[in-house]
């Protein structure tokens, strides 16, 4: 369970809406890619090991390199980097990927700040 969902335990309606949004975003992508992205972003935050990229195809490695930029370098991502992800995932996939990656970063930050404890969860 994410830190945000845990924090919203006292408001099941809002928690359910958030869980649905997160699930819809992640459900639009290959589950393996979602897991890799979440692990890559968490590793940037020092919250786990970076995923093993040996054996991954070039497109997936491109996506992970992009995902690692989201936590601290989102304004420095170039048009060429974005175009490479679009070429791999297509436009609808890029939209879902952008949401999933940014949400993964924000959820890590919510956990690091201790949101569930502050919310009494």
């Amino acid at each position: 369970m994410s830190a945000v969902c845990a924090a919203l335990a006292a408001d099941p309606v809002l928690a359910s809406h958030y869980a649905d949004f997160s699930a819809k975003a992640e459900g639009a992508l290959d589950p393996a890619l979602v897991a890799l992205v979440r692990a890559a972003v968490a590793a940037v935050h020092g919250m786990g090991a970076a995923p093993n990229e040996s054996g991954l195809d070039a497109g997936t490695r491109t996506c992970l390199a992009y995902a690692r930029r989201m936590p601290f370098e989102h304004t420095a991502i170039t048009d060429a980097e974005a175009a490479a992800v679009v070429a791999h995932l297509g436009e609808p996939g890029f939209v879902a990927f952008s949401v999933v990656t940014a949400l993964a970063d924000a959820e890590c930050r919510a956990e690091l700040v201790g949101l569930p404890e502050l919310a009494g969860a």
Partner: protein
Amino acid sequence: MSTIPRVSSAIAGEPPHFGSVLAHQPAIAESFFALYGRFWQSEVLSARIKEVARMRNARVTECGFCRNVRFDKAVAQGLGEEVVDDITDGYETSAKLTDAEKAALKFTDALIHDPELLTGDARAALQRHLTPAQIAELGLGVTLFLALAKALITMGLEPEVMDRTVLPTPAVLEAAE
């Protein structure tokens, strides 16, 4: 930071913007707008404090779109431009922001920038001014503000120029309930 859209509009006749680009993924869009409407209509935490946090996120993430949008509910609760102008570095000394708003801003900075900012007195102040339920709602809000600002920026949807725009506060969609 690019102001050239990196993804096309999925709605015929409309330029690329957050809604028209998100329309590439209708299920995500529907779920997001249901969540966002529910969040903004909840009265657990005032719209004014939510908007204070949203404005801070907009400035730190450099989201020009977010920075120029105002939601009318917060404006009606007294969040005028003279107050918004104080949501910048040094807000701790503002005479226009309340102590609860300053505590919410410190939490916002900690989540989007550095968790070490919310230790000791800052953590105690947050818990003194906001209930656990209000902190939960603030945490959800800042999570969404941050993620959506970054998604918007990285999809190249930043406007080159934009006037300040007051919009209706997101509402719960009847079909989503």
